[in-house]
Structure formats: C-alpha cells, structure tokens
C-alpha cells in the first residue's frame, strides 16, 4: 500500500518536474551569462501553445515538440536583441514579453480549433517491475529521457567548453571578459537563445508530453518556479536540478496527499517553493555565489 502510494507520488513528481527541468537548464545557462531572464514564463507558454498548434496541424506530437522549442528560441532572440543589443532594461523586456506571450497564446487559442496530441509513452520491460522506483523511472513519456541527456549536455557546455568558460566570465566580470576579447553581449544573446530553446522545449513537453492539450495560462507561473529553482540551487546545475525535483515533489504531494488522507495545508505547499527560494537567497547570497554581474547590462567603456 505504502509502496503503491509512494510510486504514484514519485511518478507524478517526475512528470510534474520534467517541464521545469528543461526550462531550468536554460535559465541556468542564461543566469550564468548574467541575464536574470524573467521572460522564461513567456517562453514556456509560447512553446506550449506552438507545440499543440503544430501537433494539431501536422498530426505529429514530435513535430509539435520541435516547433515549441523553436518558438521559445524566437522569444529568446527577441529578448536578447532587445536587452543585449538595444540595451533596454532586461526586466522591462521580460515582463512585457510575458504579458505579450500570455495574451497572444490565449488569443489564438480562443480563435483556433486545436486537437490534442501526446507523445508516446516509453515503458522499459524488466526494469519497470522494480518496486517503488520501477514505474516512476521507467514508464514515462519519451521527452523525459531526452531531459536525462540534456542535463549532462548543459553541464558539459558550461563547465567543459571554451564557450562555457567565456559564458561564465561574461556573467562574473563582463568588463574583464571584454578586455580579453570576449564579445560580452553576443555571449549573452547566445545564452538567451539556448534558454529559449530549452524553455520552449519545456513548455512543449508540458503541453504535448505531460498534459496532451493546451489551455489558457497553462504554465501558471511555472517559469517563475524555475527562476526560484535556480536561486535555490545557488546557481549550480546540481542544486538547480535538486530544486526542480523538490518543487515537483511538493506539487505531487499537494495533488496526492488528500487522496491518501494526510491533511497538509495546500496553500503552504503551493507557496513552499517560493518560500524556499527566498530563504535560500537570504542565506546564500552573502556567500557571493551569485554571478557577480547578474542582471547588470553591459555597455562598453569606463564603469
């Protein structure tokens, strides 16, 4: 009985955490490059809508996933060019893009007739019979396994390539990076493109992977949850993924606990990720592990 409940909760936790995981990889990249990207909510909702629209048009959920990622990329390109080429305040751009994306997706959703599609479920024969962890880990929609590859890829990109080194330099000390010949704003735009790609994929996975359809404001603040996860993880990929897993678990508990008969305040569970992130910031920021130039625009010249 307890094993069954545990498996159900774990399974839904992974299902709920997967879209956040994709977006968290992107947000992590963007923040390491020094952009506090709040348009991630817009990227996710656009990815979700485009995925369903494309899947509905082509009949293929996989093509929808791809289209969602590209839609996120477009938002990333707009954000990058507006805030790291035109030097408009990045929060202003992000905020406005969020309003625009939410309005536009709801607008088109109401005026289009979309049919739901869902990507295939993978079920690995022998392993799925392992008690407790078998079903959660080995019976999932296939993009979840894509995420398993994406996390090491992000780590490799940031920690083991020259591009990633430059990216981190740009986030820590843009003036210094500039003097050594790194094109600061180009790196930041590239990071935002990656962020858009991953977040669009996350939104697309939410729509055509986890749920199978689109409804208005379906991301419902998940993008902000991702920002909270990156902060909770103190700008380390490992911590970020841990945060995503925790937040997914909290969400799954909120849905599952009433059925099991455990009484826990649901408002507290919804607010828990945000409280955890704020607590992490209060405790962690002093140790200066935040990218030093996070949220600061870069223009050439004397500081």
């Amino acid at each position: 009985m307890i094993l069954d409940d545990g498996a159900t909760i774990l399974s839904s936790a992974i299902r709920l955490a997967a879209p956040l995981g994709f977006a968290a990889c992107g947000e992590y990249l963007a923040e390491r490059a020094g952009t506090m990207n709040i348009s991630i909510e817009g990227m996710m909702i656009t990815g979700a809508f485009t995925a369903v629209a494309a899947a509905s048009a082509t009949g293929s959920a996989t093509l929808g996933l791809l289209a969602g990622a590209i839609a996120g990329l477009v938002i990333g390109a707009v954000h990058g060019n507006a805030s790291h080429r035109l030097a408009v305040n990045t929060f202003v751009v992000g905020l406005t893009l969020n309003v625009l994306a939410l309005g536009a997706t709801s607008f088109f959703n109401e005026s289009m007739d979309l049919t739901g599609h869902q990507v295939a479920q993978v079920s690995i024969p022998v392993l799925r019979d392992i008690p407790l962890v078998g079903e959660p880990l080995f019976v999932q929609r296939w993009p979840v396994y894509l995420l398993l590859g994406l996390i090491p890829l992000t780590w490799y990109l940031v920690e083991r390539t020259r591009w990633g080194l430059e990216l981190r330099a740009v986030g820590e000390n843009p003036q210094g990076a500039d003097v050594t010949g790194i094109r600061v704003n180009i790196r930041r735009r590239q990071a935002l493109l990656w962020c858009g790609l991953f977040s669009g994929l996350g939104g697309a996975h939410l729509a055509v992977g986890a749920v199978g359809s689109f409804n208005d404001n379906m991301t419902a603040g998940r993008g902000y949850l991702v920002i909270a996860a990156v902060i909770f993880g103190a700008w380390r990929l490992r911590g970020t993924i841990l945060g995503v897993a925790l937040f997914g678990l909290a969400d799954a508990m909120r849905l599952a606990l009433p059925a099991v008969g455990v009484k826990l305040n649901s408002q507290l569970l919804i607010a828990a990720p945000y409280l955890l992130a704020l607590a992490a910031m209060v405790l962690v920021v002093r140790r200066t592990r935040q990218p030093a130039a996070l949220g600061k625009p870069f223009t050439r010249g004397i500081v």
Partner: protein
Amino acid sequence: MSVQIPFRPKDPAAGAARSGGPLGSVDRAARALLAPTRSGSSPLAVAVVTVLTVAAALGITAGLVAIVGGAPGEVFSSMLDGSVGTPGAFSQTLLEATPLLLVAVGSCVSSRAGVFNIGQEGQMLIGASVGAYVGLRTQGPPAVVLTLTLVCSALGGALWAAIPAVMRYRRGVDVVVSTLLMIFIAEQLVSFVVSKPWLLQETRVSGQIVAPQSNALAPSFRLPTLGDYPGLTISLGAFLAVGLAIVVAVLLARSRWGFRLRMLGHNPLAARHAGVREATFGGLALALSGAFSGLAGGVVLTGEVYRLQPGMSDNYGWDGLLVALVARDNPIAAVPTALVFGALRSGGGVLASTGVPAYLIDITQALLVFAFVLPPALLALWRSTADRRPPPPGRHLHLRPGRRVRGRRVTGGHGGRGTHGANGAYRAYGECGARGAGRGERGDRREGQRR
C-alpha cells in the same frame, strides 16, 4: 542644499532642481516630459520614432484582428463605444484607470530611485486583505472607517514591500526576484485567509455554499461616488489617485527628498559620496511603492469589488507597472496613460460581442509598452553604430580638415590619425563623452560595428 557633485549634464530635471529656479523654459519642460531617458537623444527624434512605433503596434493589433476574421474598424469603434462612448462606459474606464494610476505612481517612485519593484500584484492583494480586515472588523463613523481602511491598505502594502527592502539592504538579495517571488506567496496567503472562518471567510448562510471570499463591506463603508448611474459616475478614488500623482510629481521634481531619490537612481556611487543613505532612501522608495500598490488594493476593495477575493487584483498590478513603463516613470504622464489603459480594459469587455477574443487588449498593451520603451534605445543604438562606423578601408586619415563629421566641421591641424587628438577633432568624430571614453584602438576593431 549642500550637495555638489558632478552630475549628468544632460538631465534637465536635475539641472532644474540644482539651480532651484522655476521649472525652466518650455523647452526644458518638454524635454523632461518627452524624454527622461539617459540616451541623450533629442526629444524630437524620440517623439518621431515613438509615433512610428505606436503606429506599428496599432497596425499589428489590427492585423491580428484581421487574422482571426474580425473587421479592425468595427472592433475599434466598438471598443471606443465600450470605453468612452457613453457616460456609463466612461465611468467604467475611470474605475479601471484608478488602481492602474495608483500602482503606476508607486512604480515611478521606486524606479526613479533605481529600485525596480515588480511585485505590485502581491502588494495590492496584501493591502486589500489588511483593508478588508479593518473594514469588516471596525465600527464607527463611515468617514473614519473608510479612511482607516484605505490607510491600513497602504500600510499593508508598504509592509509587504518592506520585506524585500530589508532583504535587499541587509542581505543583498536582488529586489526584482524577491518582489516577484513574493507575489505568489501573497496569492497563497490571501487564498488561505479567505478559506478560514476565523480569519476572513464569509459567514455561513444555511442552504448556501461558502465561497472562498470575505463578507461584503457595509454600504456606508464603501468609497462614495459623484453622479448617478447611468450618468457619469466618478469614484472618490479617481480624485485621490490624480491628487497623489500630482503630489508625487511635485515632490520628485522639487523637493530635496525627490532630488536625493533621483540622484540615487541615476548614480548610486555619487549619491553615496554625497551623503545619500542608500538603505534609507532605496528602502523607503520600495516601501512607498508598496504603499501605493496597497492603496490601489484598498481602492479596488472599497470602490469596485467590495469584498476580498483571491482574484480581485485582476492584473491591476502588472498592468499598472506597464503604465509606468509607458509613462517613462513620470507620474504626470502616467495620468493619461492610465486612462488609455483603463479604456483598453473597459473596451476589452465589449470585445466578445465582435467575435474577437478579449485577450487582444493584453497584446495591445504589451505592444504599446514596446512602442514606448524601444525608441530611445533604437536611437541610441543608431547613434552608436554611426559613431563607431570604421574608417573607409585604406584611409587612415579619416579626419581630414574640412570634412564634416556629425554636422561639425573638422578644423585642420590636428595630426590626422584622429585617435589621440584629445581635442575638438576627437570629440567631433567620436563624441567620446556620450558612452564613456573607452574607445580604445583594439576595441574599435573588435566589436566596432555592433555591440
């Protein structure tokens, strides 16, 4: 005032405040109103480009209407009818514009101090909750209770905004992120408060389902209105909002406090050296911004919804922030902007009858923000690429005497290479003061054309 620091010479408002004289010539007033940006572009150019971008934003909106099969002209006229066409519609516009203006004025205060508060939605909710608690639990003369309700709403918002302020100035936590995250905590807090009978949930009436909302305020404790429905009705809140906008504008432009606040926003380092305490002024600006949002929540509570509901903030916080962005952090410019946004909101209510989704107004609002935010940046980019255009290939003597550079005639005799002239020729070519003096030789070649 003993503050004497080198200040941005192109900021007209600072100049006026420093000289202590009247607001200055029409030109300076126009500059202050049109372009309180730091791009240094001429206000006329900004205005011209803004007209173009606004036209583009409206064009895109019309295109969207056409895409979904509506008639742009019909949609426009029905929105006009639904927002200003009848006295009743205009009353609705005023009602919607009031909280937007209050939130926007608060955003102006914090943004001018260099603190970007985006948690207005949450501050509104907390303000409304505190206001509802006071309004429902207090007995007394209506005027006193109403005033107390509004004041406590403002206090509630201020306290909620003071938490990020403390986190910022005690622990160095970024304000944007903390205010953003606290919106979601506020939402859950309000939904908790209205789900507990011992707090604010409505009293149970036998045979009815108890909704997650508070009891309604007594009619005498609501904001009074001038005029009678279906004629033009103006809530007292509208006068309050406009009055506060004027007070804040005057304080920002003319008072010592406003000057220090703006100094902090322009150049925190210089402000610190001049004796402006960052924690005091920045924290106060953030709390004030929260107070305005909380007051907006109180006005929505006592003038529109009359009871506490989790969804009562209805995006007023986000939209008010957009109003401040369009008004470029000028409280006076926020008044007409809030009216336009209020008209969009009330006009959006009638969109359903034309078959166009009401979400159109969200798109229009966001596009309008871009239309007002982008022009100064576009002009600055255009100027910088014009400045940094590399010399023609094979010709290093690009500062030949007699050549016109940016409208100025280069005079002879300045050692033709044009990099270390350190005088008129150098300035004429590069205008090095505009973006700092970092025009190194290497830098020019490497990233000269684009940033």
